């Protein structure tokens, strides 16, 4: 596994020590997971929902939104009524 690439995708900083420890552990886990390849699944349909549910909708009705103090109560950084983050450079 390219741990550099994957941690970049996950936007998660890892120390060098963590990287080497994780790489070792993950390669053990991946080796264990390899056992799934023993099974012939060529004719099996994937199962992403265990329930045979379908067509669950809500109606187009407006429900009250949160008051602003509850929206921003947990914000690590805010400016006026907005959340503030380091500048997004495009």
């Amino acid at each position, binding site marked *: 596994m390219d741990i550099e690439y994957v941690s970049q995708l996950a936007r998660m900083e890892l120390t060098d020590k963590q990287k080497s420890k994780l790489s070792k552990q993950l390669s053990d886990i991946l080796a264990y*997971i390899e056992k799934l390849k023993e099974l012939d699944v060529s004719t099996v349909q994937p199962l992403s929902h265990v*329930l045979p549910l379908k067509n669950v909708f809500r109606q187009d009705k407006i429900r009250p939104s949160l008051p602003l103090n509850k929206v921003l109560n*947990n914000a690590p950084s805010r400016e006026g009524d907005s959340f503030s*983050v380091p*500048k997004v450079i495009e």
Partner: protein
Amino acid sequence: MELYKLTARQIKDLIEDKKTSPKEVAESLISRIEATENKVKALCLVDKEDIFTQCRELEKRSEHGPLFGIPVVIKDNICVQGQDTTCASRILKGFKPPYDATVVSRLKQAGAVIFAKANMDEFAFGSSCETSCYGATHNPWDLQRIPGGSSGGSCASVAADETVMALGSDTGGSIRQPASLCGVVGLKPTYGRVSRYGLIAFASSLDQIGPVTKDVADAALLLNVIAGSDIMDSTCVDREVPDYTKSLVDNVQGVKIGVPKEYFSEGLDSQVRDAVEKALDVLKGLGAQVKEISLTHTDYAVADYYIVATAEASSNLARFDGVQYGHRSASPRSLIDMYKKTRGEGFGEEAKRRIILGTYVLSSGYYDAYYLRALKVRRLIKEDFDRAFSHVDCIITPTSPTVAFKIGEKIDDPLAMYLSDVFTISANLAGMPGISVPCGLSQEGLPIGLQIIAKPFDEEMLFRTAYTFEKNTKWHKEKPRL
């Protein structure tokens, strides 16, 4: 009278007979917590003032509700409005949800007292309750040992009589395995039976909230309150909720019990095997028919689970980025830097391991080999159960292959840790309901649990079988000495 030792049904009767009050019950439990919590460390938040405010409010109520005055501990991954809900993670430190989980509002409506937040493995990632940012929870039966996980705090607090009931969540065994190791009753309902709205998701297609109680009757009482459809959760089924207390009958005459041979293999501790076999004899003696069955793909369940669950988790946990709530790294140099540092600092080791694994199995070039294949194997596992249930009413297995292990024993061997869920994971992958009830004590005096699995939405079968077993044995009356 030591109120804290009682079950919910006993307390209900006393309150109804005006022999006690919600406040007296709360006081009894708070003094118990003060006596034991420094040893067990099952709870991460107890707000006494809030408890008494709730009791005062309750006393004004004219309609009592089915859980009137009953203290319920809530696992720290279930949102309680205005109360720290952190999933035992640094990244959510101080997070106060602006809303109640559906189960919490149903509990409040039923008159329950939201008593405390229970410790857990960080984001429910673990089977030992050691990965919490608040530190490990200890097993009340032996403080050197783990209580199981991830709902370790919920189960340990019930076992230690620090609460009457608790809510846990179960993604791969996180209610049943710690219930087994702590000698209490733990139930994972059918996927879709209980609303997940307000449960901070680990793996959305596997997670269910369920009761942790001192006996089977209390589990039925609690499930009655929390089960049922919810307009806020598309996956919560619109299906009538039976009165589960009606299933509490002492009768298994003619019940067909399947015992999957794959669960009685090498990794199983002989003491656990003996206890489960004795339990089966008890049920047989009461008129149940016990027969061996096969769940062919059992051996693939753990591998399958660690792909499906971590993939979903990697996506569910992407929102913890320091923008709206929780931890944000101090003075980041840029936006990317903020993301990376916040997540690097905020997540513990096991969370990082699972996020990396889950991100990897979904990433370009690996999706088919891992994730898609895992979804297919998941179908095979579910079909095993469907086949089995065409000729049995329930399936009985050990809940955990071993009794509680020592704190620190498996912490650096994640694979060994993952394998401690080997018997519980399949029920999540297949969406089946399962319950763990105490069925013995090991020579060291540690609890052993019996798992009963039923067809989807046949929780009644679980209650009937578990209740009958409980009525005819004494294991649920055993208490840890604290």
